Protein backbone atom coordinates (compact mmCIF):
# COMPACT_ATOMS: atom_id res chain seq x y z
CA UNK A 1 0.00 0.00 0.00
CA UNK A 2 1.31 3.42 -0.92
CA UNK A 3 1.87 5.68 2.06
CA UNK A 4 0.37 9.13 1.65
CA UNK A 5 2.31 12.21 2.67
CA UNK A 6 1.36 15.50 4.23
CA UNK A 7 3.52 18.50 5.12
CA UNK A 8 2.68 20.69 8.09
CA UNK A 9 3.90 24.19 8.91
CA UNK A 10 3.86 26.43 11.97
CA UNK A 11 0.55 26.04 13.78
CA UNK A 12 -0.21 22.83 11.92
CA UNK A 13 -1.59 19.65 13.46
CA UNK A 14 -2.19 16.37 11.67
CA UNK A 15 -3.05 12.87 12.85
CA UNK A 16 -4.15 9.71 11.10
CA UNK A 17 -5.09 6.12 11.75
CA UNK A 18 -4.01 5.31 8.18
CA UNK A 19 -0.36 4.87 7.16
CA UNK A 20 0.88 8.37 6.39
CA UNK A 21 4.15 10.18 6.48
CA UNK A 22 3.97 13.62 8.05
CA UNK A 23 6.78 16.00 7.12
CA UNK A 24 7.91 19.28 8.56
CA UNK A 25 10.91 21.58 8.67
CA UNK A 26 11.96 22.97 12.04
CA UNK A 27 14.24 25.71 13.23
CA UNK A 28 13.58 26.98 16.74
CA UNK A 29 10.06 25.55 16.60
CA UNK A 30 9.10 22.25 18.16
CA UNK A 31 7.38 19.32 16.52
CA UNK A 32 5.92 16.65 18.77
CA UNK A 33 5.07 13.27 17.27
CA UNK A 34 2.58 11.21 19.28
CA UNK A 35 2.08 7.53 18.58
CA UNK A 36 -0.26 4.83 19.82
CA UNK A 37 1.38 1.55 18.79
CA UNK A 38 -1.69 -0.60 19.57
CA UNK A 39 -4.06 1.55 17.55
CA UNK A 40 -1.51 2.26 14.81
CA UNK A 41 -2.36 5.94 15.13
CA UNK A 42 0.09 8.81 14.99
CA UNK A 43 0.15 12.56 14.70
CA UNK A 44 2.41 15.56 14.67
CA UNK A 45 2.16 19.25 15.48
CA UNK A 46 4.50 22.16 14.86
CA UNK A 47 4.45 25.10 17.20
CA UNK A 48 6.46 28.18 17.94
CA UNK A 49 6.23 30.36 21.00
CA UNK A 50 5.67 34.04 20.28
CA UNK A 51 9.01 35.76 19.98
CA UNK A 52 8.13 38.77 22.07
CA UNK A 53 6.41 37.15 25.02
CA UNK A 54 8.17 33.86 25.45
CA UNK A 55 7.99 34.12 29.24
CA UNK A 56 4.34 35.09 29.43
CA UNK A 57 1.06 33.25 29.62
CA UNK A 58 0.53 33.72 25.87
CA UNK A 59 3.54 31.59 25.10
CA UNK A 60 2.41 28.74 27.27
CA UNK A 61 -1.05 28.93 25.82
CA UNK A 62 0.23 28.62 22.32
CA UNK A 63 2.19 25.49 23.14
CA UNK A 64 -0.60 24.07 25.30
CA UNK A 65 -3.08 24.72 22.52
CA UNK A 66 -0.91 22.96 19.94
CA UNK A 67 -0.55 19.96 22.26
CA UNK A 68 -4.23 19.91 23.16
CA UNK A 69 -5.15 19.95 19.47
CA UNK A 70 -2.67 17.17 18.71
CA UNK A 71 -3.85 14.92 21.54
CA UNK A 72 -7.45 15.57 20.45
CA UNK A 73 -6.63 14.80 16.81
CA UNK A 74 -4.85 11.55 17.71
CA UNK A 75 -7.79 10.46 19.87
CA UNK A 76 -10.22 11.35 17.10
CA UNK A 77 -8.18 9.18 14.71
CA UNK A 78 -8.66 6.26 17.09
CA UNK A 79 -5.69 6.57 19.43
CA UNK A 80 -5.87 6.03 23.17
CA UNK A 81 -4.37 8.84 25.16
CA UNK A 82 -3.09 6.47 27.84
CA UNK A 83 -0.94 4.58 25.33
CA UNK A 84 0.66 7.61 23.71
CA UNK A 85 4.41 8.02 23.54
CA UNK A 86 6.17 11.10 22.22
CA UNK A 87 9.10 11.98 20.03
CA UNK A 88 10.26 15.56 20.26
CA UNK A 89 12.24 17.52 17.69
CA UNK A 90 13.42 21.06 17.10
CA UNK A 91 14.30 23.91 19.39
CA UNK A 92 17.44 24.76 17.46
CA UNK A 93 19.23 28.04 17.74
CA UNK A 94 19.28 28.70 14.02
CA UNK A 95 19.24 32.47 14.07
CA UNK A 96 22.39 34.29 15.05
CA UNK A 97 20.51 37.11 16.65
CA UNK A 98 21.65 38.56 19.96
CA UNK A 99 19.20 39.37 22.71
CA UNK A 100 16.18 37.61 24.14
CA UNK A 101 15.31 35.94 20.84
CA UNK A 102 17.97 33.30 21.47
CA UNK A 103 16.09 32.14 24.58
CA UNK A 104 13.08 31.02 22.56
CA UNK A 105 14.48 27.64 21.49
CA UNK A 106 15.47 26.82 25.06
CA UNK A 107 12.08 27.89 26.39
CA UNK A 108 10.39 25.77 23.74
CA UNK A 109 12.35 22.72 24.84
CA UNK A 110 11.70 23.39 28.53
CA UNK A 111 8.01 23.92 27.90
CA UNK A 112 7.51 20.64 26.06
CA UNK A 113 9.53 18.60 28.54
CA UNK A 114 7.44 19.98 31.40
CA UNK A 115 4.20 19.53 29.51
CA UNK A 116 4.82 15.89 28.61
CA UNK A 117 5.93 15.09 32.15
CA UNK A 118 2.81 16.72 33.61
CA UNK A 119 0.60 14.86 31.17
CA UNK A 120 2.42 11.58 31.84
CA UNK A 121 3.32 11.00 28.21
CA UNK A 122 6.68 9.23 27.87
CA UNK A 123 9.29 10.72 25.60
CA UNK A 124 10.82 7.80 23.71
CA UNK A 125 13.21 9.93 21.71
CA UNK A 126 14.20 13.54 21.39
CA UNK A 127 16.51 15.47 19.16
CA UNK A 128 16.45 19.06 20.31
CA UNK A 129 18.68 22.10 20.54
CA UNK A 130 21.85 22.63 18.59
CA UNK A 131 22.33 25.04 15.74
CA UNK A 132 20.91 23.15 12.79
CA UNK A 133 17.45 23.12 11.38
CA UNK A 134 15.78 19.75 11.00
CA UNK A 135 13.70 17.98 8.39
CA UNK A 136 11.46 15.52 10.20
CA UNK A 137 9.54 12.64 8.64
CA UNK A 138 7.14 10.76 10.90
CA UNK A 139 5.29 7.55 10.01
CA UNK A 140 1.90 7.51 11.68
CA UNK A 141 1.26 3.75 11.67
CA UNK A 142 4.52 2.49 13.18
CA UNK A 143 5.84 5.60 14.88
CA UNK A 144 9.18 5.74 13.08
CA UNK A 145 10.72 9.18 12.76
CA UNK A 146 13.63 10.27 10.62
CA UNK A 147 15.52 13.47 11.15
CA UNK A 148 17.88 15.13 8.75
CA UNK A 149 19.80 18.13 9.99
CA UNK A 150 20.20 20.95 7.55
CA UNK A 151 22.62 23.83 7.78
CA UNK A 152 20.57 26.32 5.85
CA UNK A 153 16.87 26.97 5.96
CA UNK A 154 15.38 28.72 2.98
CA UNK A 155 14.48 32.31 3.74
CA UNK A 156 10.78 31.78 3.17
CA UNK A 157 10.71 28.93 5.69
CA UNK A 158 12.55 30.98 8.28
CA UNK A 159 10.36 33.99 7.81
CA UNK A 160 7.09 32.07 7.84
CA UNK A 161 5.36 33.83 10.67
CA UNK A 162 3.40 32.00 13.30
CA UNK A 163 -0.32 32.53 12.84
CA UNK A 164 -2.03 34.58 15.51
CA UNK A 165 -3.79 32.49 18.11
CA UNK A 166 -7.41 32.39 17.05
CA UNK A 167 -9.79 31.86 19.90
CA UNK A 168 -12.63 29.44 19.38
CA UNK A 169 -16.24 30.21 18.80
CA UNK A 170 -18.74 30.23 21.67
CA UNK A 171 -22.28 28.97 21.16
CA UNK A 172 -24.94 29.08 23.83
CA UNK A 173 -27.88 26.83 23.04
CA UNK A 174 -31.40 28.06 23.64
Amino acid sequence: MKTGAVTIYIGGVYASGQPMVIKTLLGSCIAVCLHDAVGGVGGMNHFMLPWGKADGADAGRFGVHAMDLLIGAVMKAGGDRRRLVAKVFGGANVLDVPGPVVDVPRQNVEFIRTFLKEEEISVVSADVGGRYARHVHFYTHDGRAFVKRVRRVRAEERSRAAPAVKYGEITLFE
Partner: protein
Amino acid sequence: MPATILVVEDSKTVRALIRAALLADDYLVVEAPGAREALTTLEDTPVDLVITDVNMPDIDGLTFTKTLRARPRERSTPILVLTTEDGEAMKQRGREAGATGWLVKPFHPDQLRDTVRRVLGARA
Protein backbone atom coordinates in the same frame (compact mmCIF):
# COMPACT_ATOMS: atom_id res chain seq x y z
CA MET B 1 -21.43 32.27 48.48
CA PRO B 2 -19.36 31.89 45.31
CA ALA B 3 -20.58 29.45 42.69
CA THR B 4 -18.92 26.04 42.54
CA ILE B 5 -17.70 24.92 39.14
CA LEU B 6 -16.69 21.38 38.25
CA VAL B 7 -14.01 21.15 35.55
CA VAL B 8 -13.77 17.78 33.78
CA GLU B 9 -10.70 17.65 31.57
CA ASP B 10 -8.11 14.93 31.09
CA SER B 11 -5.21 17.29 30.45
CA LYS B 12 -3.66 18.49 33.70
CA THR B 13 -2.18 21.50 31.91
CA VAL B 14 -5.48 22.58 30.36
CA ARG B 15 -7.23 22.02 33.72
CA ALA B 16 -4.72 24.40 35.30
CA LEU B 17 -5.45 27.04 32.63
CA ILE B 18 -9.21 26.75 33.17
CA ARG B 19 -8.79 26.87 36.94
CA ALA B 20 -6.59 29.98 36.70
CA ALA B 21 -9.18 31.71 34.50
CA LEU B 22 -12.04 30.90 36.92
CA LEU B 23 -10.20 31.69 40.14
CA ALA B 24 -9.76 35.26 38.90
CA ASP B 25 -13.53 35.59 39.39
CA ASP B 26 -13.43 33.91 42.81
CA TYR B 27 -15.37 30.81 41.87
CA LEU B 28 -14.83 27.61 43.80
CA VAL B 29 -13.28 25.18 41.35
CA VAL B 30 -13.32 21.41 41.71
CA GLU B 31 -11.51 19.32 39.15
CA ALA B 32 -11.79 15.82 37.75
CA PRO B 33 -9.45 14.19 35.20
CA GLY B 34 -12.33 12.19 33.73
CA ALA B 35 -16.08 11.66 33.75
CA ARG B 36 -15.88 8.70 36.12
CA GLU B 37 -14.04 10.74 38.74
CA ALA B 38 -16.44 13.62 38.12
CA LEU B 39 -19.45 11.42 38.90
CA THR B 40 -17.77 10.37 42.16
CA THR B 41 -17.10 14.03 43.03
CA LEU B 42 -20.72 14.93 42.33
CA GLU B 43 -21.91 12.35 44.84
CA ASP B 44 -20.89 14.61 47.72
CA THR B 45 -20.25 17.98 46.07
CA PRO B 46 -23.21 19.77 44.50
CA VAL B 47 -22.04 22.17 41.80
CA ASP B 48 -23.55 25.20 40.06
CA LEU B 49 -21.90 24.66 36.69
CA VAL B 50 -20.02 21.93 34.86
CA ILE B 51 -17.33 22.54 32.25
CA THR B 52 -16.39 19.39 30.36
CA ASP B 53 -14.03 18.31 27.58
CA VAL B 54 -15.32 15.89 24.91
CA ASN B 55 -12.48 13.56 23.97
CA MET B 56 -11.49 11.82 27.18
CA PRO B 57 -10.53 8.24 28.00
CA ASP B 58 -13.23 5.98 29.53
CA ILE B 59 -16.29 8.17 29.11
CA ASP B 60 -16.56 10.96 26.53
CA GLY B 61 -17.94 14.37 27.45
CA LEU B 62 -21.21 13.93 25.55
CA THR B 63 -22.03 10.63 27.24
CA PHE B 64 -21.15 12.32 30.53
CA THR B 65 -23.51 15.20 29.69
CA LYS B 66 -26.36 12.76 28.93
CA THR B 67 -25.64 10.92 32.19
CA LEU B 68 -25.92 14.16 34.17
CA ARG B 69 -29.18 15.11 32.44
CA ALA B 70 -30.66 11.81 33.60
CA ARG B 71 -29.83 12.56 37.24
CA PRO B 72 -32.32 14.55 39.31
CA ARG B 73 -29.72 16.82 40.90
CA GLU B 74 -27.91 17.77 37.68
CA ARG B 75 -30.93 17.77 35.38
CA SER B 76 -30.84 21.55 35.06
CA THR B 77 -27.24 22.30 36.01
CA PRO B 78 -25.61 24.33 33.22
CA ILE B 79 -23.04 22.29 31.29
CA LEU B 80 -20.50 24.03 29.09
CA VAL B 81 -18.56 21.86 26.67
CA LEU B 82 -15.01 23.13 26.14
CA THR B 83 -13.39 21.22 23.31
CA THR B 84 -11.15 21.29 20.25
CA GLU B 85 -14.11 19.82 18.32
CA ASP B 86 -15.37 22.63 16.10
CA GLY B 87 -17.62 20.75 13.66
CA GLU B 88 -21.31 21.62 13.42
CA ALA B 89 -22.33 17.96 13.63
CA MET B 90 -20.50 17.53 16.93
CA LYS B 91 -21.95 20.76 18.24
CA GLN B 92 -25.41 19.49 17.33
CA ARG B 93 -24.71 16.25 19.17
CA GLY B 94 -23.72 18.35 22.18
CA ARG B 95 -26.97 20.23 22.03
CA GLU B 96 -28.93 16.98 21.78
CA ALA B 97 -27.00 15.56 24.73
CA GLY B 98 -28.22 18.49 26.78
CA ALA B 99 -25.25 20.85 26.82
CA THR B 100 -25.93 24.47 27.67
CA GLY B 101 -23.12 25.82 25.52
CA TRP B 102 -20.25 24.84 23.25
CA LEU B 103 -16.88 26.58 23.51
CA VAL B 104 -14.16 25.77 21.01
CA LYS B 105 -10.56 25.75 22.25
CA PRO B 106 -8.34 27.62 22.51
CA PHE B 107 -10.28 29.77 24.93
CA HIS B 108 -9.47 33.27 26.03
CA PRO B 109 -9.75 33.55 29.83
CA ASP B 110 -11.94 36.68 29.53
CA GLN B 111 -14.32 34.95 27.13
CA LEU B 112 -14.58 31.92 29.37
CA ARG B 113 -15.34 34.10 32.40
CA ASP B 114 -17.91 36.13 30.41
CA THR B 115 -19.67 32.95 29.29
CA VAL B 116 -19.67 31.50 32.80
CA ARG B 117 -21.09 34.75 34.16
CA ARG B 118 -23.82 34.79 31.51
CA VAL B 119 -24.79 31.18 32.12
CA LEU B 120 -24.78 31.50 35.91
CA GLY B 121 -26.59 34.84 35.68
CA ALA B 122 -29.31 33.40 33.46
CA ARG B 123 -29.85 30.68 35.99
CA ALA B 124 -29.97 32.95 39.03
